[in-house]
């Protein structure tokens, strides 16, 4: 890869991330400890995985507000499957991914085949799925997840001992995130369908003229997103060791916000895996920083809202300035 293309685009947000980290570290040095880093990582694995799925959706020019209801549904299914069917980790992953993919597929079909605008289609499926989840569970927590699965969730990698004698390490769930990042990057960067995702987001008509099958790509994107949500549900369940059907209320906004922070455009065509990873990190660091600086947790939303609006506003103002000063005639 050529250095120049090494994402000048992602540089500003990376700088913001570094600057913010610096400020937080000055306010509270705890921020820059391995322990805190691992904490941040563990509590945001689900967000990161779902953000990558959302990235693909935004790239096509779509949006998906049903993601929170889908993961709620999949965690419930996963929980039930673990308790009543099999506690085997592979079976669990299979069940979760299959159910996630199926729900994503429904979104994909509604959007690609019935041409329902994504925001409306996913609002509809969100209502249906969430309604079913709450009806079937009555909002009650699912406990009694088998011990073997809980033990699995507690595994740490590269463990080491801290000065105070406690042992910490990378949570095993990282093993899910890393392949997901790689896989998403691989699909977007290295496969024809991935470039097709960018192409239909950039210019739908031309992409079809070039031979891309837009409806197949859309169906793939929403299904893949469902698949990632399935994996995220397994990760979530293994970390929380129980299932709360209400745990994800409003989570879709956080996912979208993180992806947008990472520079993806809701109009489609622009955005990258690297940007999204940085965006998610920024999101997490803000949350973590607010806690470390003892700022009430409610401020988190204010800060996130302001950052979303602020960053896009700056972008728009710059674009307008460029447009205004554009040379339209070479005056002699």
């Amino acid at each position, binding site marked *: 890869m*050529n250095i*120049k*293309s090494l994402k000048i685009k992602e540089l500003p947000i990376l700088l913001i991330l570094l600057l913010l980290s610096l400020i937080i570290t000055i306010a509270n040095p705890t921020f820059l400890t391995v322990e805190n880093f691992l904490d941040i990582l563990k509590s945001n694995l689900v967000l990161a995985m779902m953000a990558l799925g959302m990235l693909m959706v935004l790239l096509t020019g779509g949006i998906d507000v049903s993601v929170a209801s889908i993961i709620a549904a999949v965690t419930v299914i996963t929980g039930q499957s673990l308790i009543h069917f099999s506690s085997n980790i592979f079976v669990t992953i299979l069940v979760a991914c299959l159910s996630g993919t199926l729900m994503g597929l429904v979104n994909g079909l509604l959007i690609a085949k019935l041409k329902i605008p994504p925001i409306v289609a996913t609002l509809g499926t969100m209502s249906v799925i969430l309604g079913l989840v709450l009806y079937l569970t009555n909002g009650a927590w699912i406990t009694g997840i088998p011990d073997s699965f809980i033990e699995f969730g507690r595994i740490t990698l590269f463990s080491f001992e801290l000065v105070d004698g406690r042992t910490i390490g990378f949570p095993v769930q990282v093993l899910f995130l890393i392949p997901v990042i790689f896989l998403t990057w691989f699909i977007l960067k*290295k*496969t*024809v*369908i*991935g*470039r*097709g995702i*960018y*192409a239909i*987001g*950039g*210019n739908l*008509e*031309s*992409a079809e*003229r*070039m*031979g*891309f099958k837009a409806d197949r790509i859309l169906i793939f994107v929403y299904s893949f997103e469902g698949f990632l949500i399935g994996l995220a549900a397994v990760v979530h369940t293994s970390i929380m060791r129980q299932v709360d059907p209400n745990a994800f209320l409003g989570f879709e906004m956080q996912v979208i916000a993180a992806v947008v922070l990472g520079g993806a455009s809701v109009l489609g*065509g*622009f955005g990258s895996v690297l940007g999204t990873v940085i965006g998610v990190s920024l999101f997490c660091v803000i949350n973590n920083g607010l806690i470390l600086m003892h700022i009430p947790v409610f401020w988190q939303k204010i800060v996130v809202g302001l950052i979303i609006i602020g960053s896009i506003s700056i972008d728009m103002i710059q674009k307008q300035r460029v447009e205004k*000063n*554009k*040379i*339209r*005639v*070479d*005056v*002699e």
Partner: protein
Amino acid sequence: MGRTLVEIEKISKIFPGVKALQNVGFNINTGEIHALIGENGAGKSTLIKILSGVYQPEAGGKITMNGKVLEELTPLESLRNGIVVIYQDFSLFPNLSVMENIALGHSVEKNDTLVSWKAMEAIAADALDQLGLILDFHVPLGELSVAKQQLVAIARALANNAKLLILDEPTSSLSKGEVKKLFEIMLSLKKRGIALLFISHKLDELFAVSDRFTVLRDGQYIGTYSEDELDDDQLISLMVGRKIEYTIYPKNKKEEPLLEIQNFSKKGNFQDINFTLHKGEILGLTGLVGAGRTEVAQAIFGLNPVDEGTMLLDGAPLVINTPDEAVKAGIAYVPENRLQEGLVLRKSIEDNISLSVLDSISANNGLVDLTLKRSLTEKWMDQLGIRPNNPQMLASKLSGGNQQRVVISKWLATEPRVLIVDEPTNGIDIGAKSEIHQLLRELAASGLGILVISSELPEILAIADRVAVMRHGRIITQMFCEGLNQEDIMSKAL
């Protein structure tokens, strides 16, 4: 001249109520630049769409390429056979790199699962090499100029092994230098044996590069001629079946200044623009596309505020920063692009005409007087003869000429002092053109000052009293139109 590449035989296309093409047949050779000409509505774009597989021709028609009959052509099939259209909008991807824009089609075509960036780079490099272009591969296409984007589109065609390259109005938004560069490239492609089908309205350009001309008129094939058989006038008379003879209106010298433009300048748009529009006068503003005509018009109308300069209306200084201020001051602007800037296509004639006068047809409480709205609409529809006579008709369903009348009505309803019309007869059939001309002349006679921007010199000569010629953002000359001919103007504009 090369051998026959494409044989087009007995191609017809019938749309409900219209025979868009009737028994059209001609050959295109390898290594030639073949001009396809005809007026708007002659069937050129229908033919392109059939060649590119967007439309299916009626039974009985046949397209043969290299001896192979192309049946049931789809856009993809057409592309695979090497027929590539460079559309006016280029059909490129602003968010992808130059390299991908050129080479991505390859992977799609081969039905690959994975993309090879190395292979793409090689393909793109090769295509750009063939065109003798040096561009940064990794720049997103959206950051390039229009001319460069077009060259990328051509490079993509080469990468797709284009055998027949169809260029649809390729010069419409290029500067003179860029056109020259494009022609060089077209000639070099021709040398490589590629067939080029070149569609343009600009006769000088057609003659500069074309080997043969195929003329269509009203969906009929008129003939194919080699370049030395024809001159401008003959070509025009073939296109229209008669020489373009607009009614030439008598030229008047008006003395009473209405709108005075003094030292208008805007960086990257125009420089030192000075002219005076008089009451009752039609002033033509011409020049090549890209000379800055529209930019000046939009500056007067408040869409493109100037860096410096003053404007006087009836001798009083006037500062305009937004269109609504212009409208209030009595300035109206009929934009060039009727479909995207002039009309709300999804709404009715009535809604469109009343849009600019909502204030004056509303009561103090902000509610629109629907009776007034209707009577105002009917008045203008009647005066301008808009057909069908149904105020509720959607704008999208009208013919080009009637659409233009609706846009003009919208402005006349504001009772303007100054009317600016940008390419008033663009895409309108010849009968409707003369009616628009007559209308503009009548409006001028009623005391309006009219600024007509047009690339069509016969139109300027027919209706304008005076003409201002722009070149590279400046007004080169202003002339009284009496006794002027096209060459007099063209020599200044070029």
